């Protein structure tokens, strides 16, 4: 059982500091005791659901989140880690698709529809969700469920065995040298693979300290927390590093910082160079897949030609040279079992020998993975993956929109932006349109650049003429 392995680590590290946020610090022993106490509190509400109740957790980074995650596991339930920015309709779709019984969420955030609050453990709200006439069965081995953006129009729920979650953490610890003297400052949301696989469980198994940043990672906040915590590892999305280098020469040196981890592709070379020049620390590009866990690590990001070599327990295949990139295929000890809400789809993405087709294109240079592009419609904005099909479907459902195409463009700051071209009347109310999308999808899935045209240009095959569409955003 996953929780037994975690608790063993919690008791082993005793009085050391385990996790902190802006308001709370918990030692390892306190974390074990508090999660046990909250598990009992939760148990009082689990009667109607039997064993392995499905409990969604939707919240920002906090010690309360960590306590609740462990408490849900300890109570014998299966935690479903939702993106904290999921709106009510998105949450409802997931609850329906996955047959969630209960949802833990932060006060002040939109409540799930058709629900009733039954408790407020750790300052979060616990809502009972309506029972479903039919829901998909969980795999017998499933102990944790997380979500991926998918590419067919809705988030996919990946089921993980306890062993897969545990091995993801153990292999990250071994592959990256995480130790008890490390202090991890994590600004990525714990529900996201970047944080889940580099920070949450790895920190506790290694006996390290986990410091949780919450909200927008502006330079001032990150600098303050780096100074307060004496962090040795910093984990965040590219926007965090872009913000830090915007501080210019005022960025202080962080003597204790040994590793800075960002999600892969979108980090600009300029940010990388300026960050290392200011801090002496090279930014490590995290590469992982929601379905397969963490995959590579570059021992020296400065000299490594790509994203690093496979972590322990990872088999990775790609092209042999830059001239001949091929689909990246991976097999790991931390593979998800299947998609709960899309039967057969994950299995269909596996090769006969069990490698997962990531949707990335790339090649291996001296054993290090270099990415060259994508084979699917997933768009990466600031390190967050967005399913173009999902956003397109919502846009097409907006009043006055006849057709839509969603794409990635480079904005005038040289950054990544989510753009949409809409076939509609020129009088289309774009404020109402953004409200429409924002009510249905997470905020980062709302296109920031919108062009309205009479008709979407399409080629003879009927596919959108992307070259022509991209030109609409050229400055």
């Amino acid at each position: 059982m996953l929780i037994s392995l975690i608790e063993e680590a919690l008791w082993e590290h005793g009085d050391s500091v385990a996790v902190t946020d802006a308001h709370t610090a918990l030692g390892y022993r306190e974390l074990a005791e508090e999660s046990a106490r909250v598990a009992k509190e939760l148990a009082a509400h689990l009667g109607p659901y039997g064993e392995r109740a499905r409990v969604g957790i939707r919240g920002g980074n906090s010690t309360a989140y960590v306590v609740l995650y462990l408490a849900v596991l300890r109570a014998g339930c299966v935690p479903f880690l939702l993106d904290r920015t999921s709106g009510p309709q998105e949450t409802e779709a997931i609850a329906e698709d996955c047959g969630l019984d209960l949802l833990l969420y932060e006060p002040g955030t939109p409540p799930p529809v058709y629900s009733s609050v039954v408790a407020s453990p750790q300052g979060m709200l616990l809502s009972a969700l309506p029972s479903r006439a039919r829901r998909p069965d969980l795999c017998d081995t499933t102990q944790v469920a997380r979500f991926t953006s998918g590419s067919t129009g809705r988030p996919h729920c990946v089921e993980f065995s306890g062993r897969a979650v545990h091995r993801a953490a153990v292999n990250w610890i071994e592959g990256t040298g995480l130790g008890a003297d490390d202090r991890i400052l994590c600004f990525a949301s714990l529900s996201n693979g970047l944080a889940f696989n580099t920070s949450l469980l790895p920190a506790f198994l290694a006996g390290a300290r986990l410091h949780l940043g919450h909200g927008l990672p502006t330079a001032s906040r990150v600098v303050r927390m780096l100074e307060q915590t004496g962090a040795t590892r910093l984990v965040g999305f590219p926007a965090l590093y872009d913000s830090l280098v915007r501080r210019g020469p005022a960025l202080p040196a962080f003597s204790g910082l040994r590793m800075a981890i960002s999600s892969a592709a979108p980090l600009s070379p300029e940010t990388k160079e300026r960050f290392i020049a200011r801090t002496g620390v090279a930014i490590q590009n995290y590469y992982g897949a929601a379905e397969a866990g963490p995959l590579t690590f570059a021992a020296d990001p400065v000299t490594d030609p790509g994203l690093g070599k496979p972590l322990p327990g990872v088999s990775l295949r790609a092209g042999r040279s830059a001239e001949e990139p091929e689909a990246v295929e991976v097999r790991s000890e931390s593979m998800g079992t299947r998609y709960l809400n899309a039967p057969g789809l994950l299995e269909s993405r596996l090769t006969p020998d069990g490698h997962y087709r990531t949707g990335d294109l790339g090649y291996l240079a001296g054993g290090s993975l270099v990415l060259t592009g994508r084979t699917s419609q997933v768009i990466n904005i600031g390190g967050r993956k967005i399913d173009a099909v999902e956003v397109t479907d919502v846009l097409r459902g907006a009043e006055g929109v006849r057709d839509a195409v969603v794409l990635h463009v480079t904005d005038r700051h040289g950054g990544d932006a989510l753009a949409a071209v809409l076939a509609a009347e020129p009088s289309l109310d774009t404020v109402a349109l953004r409200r429409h999308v924002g009510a249905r999808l997470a905020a980062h899935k709302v296109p920031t650049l919108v062009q309205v045209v009479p008709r979407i240009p399409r080629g003879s095959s009927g596919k959108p003429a992307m070259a022509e569409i991209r030109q609409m955003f050229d400055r």
Partner: protein
Amino acid sequence: MTTTQDALRARIVRIVLDSVEGELTETELSAAEWSLSNIGYSSLSYIRMIDTVENELGVYLDPEEDGERIASVDDLVQVVQERLQEPASA
């Protein structure tokens, strides 16, 4: 509104417009009632805007604690003005 307030507001409007991903005019911002959510201000735009306010005006904005108080131009002007008038911390 005093000249100083006018100048501060103009500066903040310029920062807000410069921080958005695409092209946005003051007229469009005005039509959106000076609300940042009405113009689809993304989290990346917010980070750029806060960075610029801090770098140019020396005012620390906390996106968590200030929250709703930085959701429109009017609120931003008020918060920045308050912070500028606060005595420097010891």
